[in-house]
């Protein structure tokens, strides 16, 4: 039988490890040669992510991890190869050194599916999957939770601040609060 204090230890271990490392690695294993492009495209997709969260390292480490999604269109390369060829295409165009508004216009075309010929690859799949992967890292970090108002793990004690009075106070002024 576990003592109560040990319950939730896995949750705390996850939080502490992410806070401690911020996913950071000394060198990128897969995309080391394309690090400038990887960092540049993530910085435009998710601007203002604090330095404590290293999303390029997260994407590098999890490129081959489906993270719950296993489908791909016929002919689409495996995701790590898609990322590599996409980042190479950006490097060939000097993406990392472009002014921000030029970078944004290219990302916009990629997201809308208008850059397939321009980049010579499945540019929408590339940028969509890269964004989804980076979001998984960003939104799994406890610093992000504090910023966006997500309370993280609720086990084992539940959300301690959620007492009936606290809930009622938070909901004052809700459009639906007077209903029922």
């Amino acid at each position, binding site marked *: 039988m*576990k003592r109560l204090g040990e319950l*939730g230890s896995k*949750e705390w271990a*996850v939080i502490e490890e992410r806070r401690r490392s911020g996913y950071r690695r000394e060198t990128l294993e897969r995309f080391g040669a394309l690090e400038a492009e990887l960092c540049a495209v993530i910085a*435009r*997709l*998710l*601007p*203002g992510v604090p330095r404590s969260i290293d999303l390029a390292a997260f994407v590098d480490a999890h490129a081959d*991890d*489906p*993270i*719950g*999604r*296993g*489908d*791909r*269109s*016929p002919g689409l390369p*495996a995701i790590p190869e898609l990322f590599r060829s996409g980042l190479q295409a950006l490097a060939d165009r000097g993406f990392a050194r472009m002014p921000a508004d030029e970078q*944004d216009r290219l*990302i*916009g075309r990629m*997201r*809308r*599916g208008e850059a397939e010929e321009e980049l010579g690859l499945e540019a929408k799949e590339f940028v*969509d999957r890269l*964004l*989804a992967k980076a*979001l*998984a*890292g*960003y*939104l*799994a970090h406890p610093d*992000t*939770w504090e*910023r*966006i*108002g*997500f*309370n*993280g*793990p*609720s*086990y*084992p004690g*539940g*959300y301690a601040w*959620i007492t009936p009075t606290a*809930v009622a106070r*938070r*909901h004052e*002024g*809700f*459009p*639906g*609060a007077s*209903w*029922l």
Partner: protein
Amino acid sequence: MSAPPLRVEELKRLMRRHEGRVDACIVGSGAAGAVLAKELAEGGLSVVVLEAGDWIDSREDMVNDELTMLGRLDWDDDRLSDGADPLKLGRVNTGRAVGGTTVHFTAMSLRLDASDFRAQSADGVGVDWPLAYEELAPYYSEVERALPVSGPRRSKWVSGAPYPHGALPWSAKDYVLAAGMDKLGLHVEMTPHAIATGPVDGRSACMYYGFCMDGCKSDAKGGMNVTYIPKAVAAGAEIRARSFATRIESESGRAVGVTYLADGEERFQPAERVFVCCYAIETPRLLLNSGNLANSCDQVGRNLMVHSGPIAYGRFNRPLDSFVTPPVGVFTRDPYASDPARGFARGFLLNTYCQFPINFAQSLVDSNPDLWGQELMDVLDEYAHWGLVASLGEVLPNSENRVTLADELDGNGVPIAHVTFSYGENDKALIEAERALAVRTLEAAGATEILTNDGNHHLLGTARMGDDPAASVVGPDCRSHDVPNLWICDGSVWPTAGAVNPSLTIEALALRTARLVLDAEGRGDGRIGR
């Protein structure tokens, strides 16, 4: 009888091990396989269940963290997906664990409506089921008591009310969003859930952790892993985890057993009867890879259906904290019945909903190509302020929407699944109606900003049931028309999709199938639901 243990270690200790030929080999331990295992074992049959996924102990293996659990509970293997509307596959629709997809399901437990069993006669679309609601109703009741389902004392719509457990409480999002539904004249009730609201069988009542879809740590959620699986083990069934079935072997038109991979080697489980319960992609994949078994009608893999489910996201001025309490709250089934005035057949339901941060962001950016950069960061910064109205609509069967085997092989040398899907005209009209009503609900509730996505849920069809062996794979008892000792029992057999989450109906169908098998063996006691 005292309740069987919930801890995986204890279950493994008391589990019987079967050697040689068994009475029943069940492939898959989800909503159908677990129910069959418990019922057949209690009926005196020797039962082995082959499960590709692993045991998941709620204390030891489930972590209250979205990223940790993404992939751990999911069938996220490589699959090809195309068509005009390629499906996303993985967490969104298929699980992999002892307990199957019910380990991460939302636990919404609604019954199909009587009209869902006769879409062709009522509306001239799809096909009729070879059985009627009335034949399934007693099994619905029994499953609702076994899980148990919590829900309202009475309901405007088809239901199991009064439910064995009292309804879950309303959360902040429910009060806010139900006010919008109310202004539109929609009737609102708390959704029935397979979530215990009082202690039962050593399981805790719901603790409102909110992490239902990352594995329930309080055991209140009635996934198969804490309900039918422990009882199946107590009755003598053996669950073999990490055992991936590759072929059903047959001789002279009868199944003789299942070849599977475990611990890196190929093994064979001989069996008197084989039950395929792998859900609507892996079931046809297994049958097609078994020499096109049970497919003289050419229907295996065809008529793949989903439930259409655009979600409308509304921003409110104060935080809703939707992540507290189970993700699905109140719902309305008012738009469910066919209405000729709407310009499409069949219908849908709306419910309040919550997505945890990763799911929330990924679902939004997938459907909104212009949402990225600062605009996206602004949405994420107000995560706690967004309230979700989700929809669930009926998609009609189309034989060109199908699962086939790709040329590419997986790591085990089995061809990977190739899934082709496109919405039809009726589906598209229905989806726009879903989206429009969800958006109007948010407007009426006072949302200051609204976004939508193009989601869908669940996988159904691909081994449809029917009376005609030339047009269907199994009969109303889920037994193959071609192979008399082979049953297919899961969401694949649904001829049409209705518009409710499928687990409760899959469980009720499996319960009925088990009783029919036992009756045919003279082992049954003639019960039609308890």
